[in-house]
């Protein structure tokens, strides 16, 4: 509980940004038509690959002899990149299908 209060106090502004982002996420999606559910899911999945940024920072911040970190980090980068690149590419293919009129 104290921990939570502490976090609340230290990161007030970011909390505001978070609340805004949560509402924004809701609003953005709340009126999407059924046909777009799958491409949207797929697009959101690609975006969730942002976690790759963390993996890059991890590798950059580790010493070049720290093999455990390098291993975990580069594995994370590979997986994250697959998610990002594959995700956007698959979404694009799907949407291309829809676009044909």
């Amino acid at each position, binding site marked *: 509980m104290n921990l939570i209060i502490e976090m609340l106090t230290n990161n007030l502004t970011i909390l505001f940004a978070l609340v805004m982002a949560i509402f924004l996420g809701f609003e953005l*999606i709340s009126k999407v038509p059924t046909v777009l559910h799958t491409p949207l899911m797929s697009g959101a999945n690609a975006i969730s690959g942002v976690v790759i940024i963390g993996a890059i920072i991890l590798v950059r911040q580790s010493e070049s002899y720290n093999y455990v970190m390098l291993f975990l980090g580069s594995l994370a980068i590979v997986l994250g990149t697959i998610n990002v690149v594959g995700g956007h590419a698959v979404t694009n293919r799907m949407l291309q299908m829809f676009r044909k009129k």
Partner: protein
Amino acid sequence: MSSLSPALINLFYLISVSLFIVGLQRLSSPKTASSGNLIAAMGMGIGILIALLMPISSGDNNYGVIAIALFFGAAIGYVIAGRVLMTQMPEMVSLFNGLGGACALFISIAELLNFHEHNSIDPATYLTTLLALLIGSVAFTGSLVAYGKLAGSVKDSWKLPKANIFNMALLLALISAVIYQTQYPTSIELVYIIMLFALTYGVTFVLNVGGADMPVIISILNALTGVSAALAGVMYDNKIMLLAGILVGSSGAILTLLMCRAMNRSLISVLAGGFGGTSVSAVQVGDKMVKEVSVMDASIMLRYSQNVVIVPGYGMAVAQAQKICKELEDQLEQVAVNVRYAIHPVAGRMPGHMNVLLAEANVDYSKLLDLEEANKFLKDTDVTIVVGANDVVNPSALDDPGSPIYGMPILEILQGKNVIVLKRGMSSGYSGIENPLFFNEKTKMLFGDAKNSLISLLEELKVISD
């Protein structure tokens, strides 16, 4: 490499987040969706560039390792995405999502190792990292199981006994372990146990849900990956990860609810493993009669119709029959028969499933009728061909209050004159319930794999049309 000024970095941060928002916004409207995806990808590109170029406090950069990893990841992702069949889209998304979860898992475990090694444990950061680990792990194995279920390699029958109770207990154990570990982070062992528990939970949680509900589950797991990315963003004090992650988290949550609503079910019933997969055997079938139709008769009926409606369903996807549907359409249109497709919003196993498949087969967009249009058009329809659809044409949704799908809007094909149903046998659809349509006097069955049946019909049609 040159390091960026903080002001510039912040500016790019803002741009990147804005691009994500605009991307999501555009993804949710049919006309702009395609550009939305590209815009979001640009946001991601900028985010990655900043991560590569921004100044860091310690470490050796290791650009070589990063470059190789990025290259391999991008190549693999690109190739898989290019090769996958349209019908395999949902499982692909699930797989990709799992990899994202795994990425979160690996970086959190690495950071936790770091904390313990340097004995620098700030409780708030520690808790955040532990949660990222937990959620990433659940998203990881959960997505893999969902992938397996959709690909058909994981069977719906592989369920734990009392799965709901087991899952609850596991979840409670997980939460307690996290609380304990945050307060007494003395050893790393409990971290591994938490990870193992979370990985297990991902498996059992998804195993319990019916295979056909996987789209909903993927949406949830996707939201979870988003949240774990956001938590990792707190860890690295990176605003892009944080905000993009939260955006995905909240939009995933609302998308999940929208999907449930489109199926006329509650999220709880989906998670508790409601129907989907519990296939009730059609015991009462014996005493009722179905009429079969020969390929010959069926093609003559089609040939001399004015309006024909094709109702595609999950079976069309299974049989990969979309291209042959299109050929049938072309053949019929040649002899001046008017062909339309009636698309139910939840036909198939993912929203828009049928639209994607038919678009792949180059079916003209203007020939696809949505639920409302179709129900109007069906009044003037001579023959309706049901290609592997079942629940979405089940009339008990209209008139049997006892039916589990009562109240779901369906394609009312009995308004037309004749119905021909293409399926392999008498087994039920996704919801596992019987379909009185098959016993209706307007209905005739054409048994066999949908693709084969369609091919036979097409050949016969060509013969009689010449």
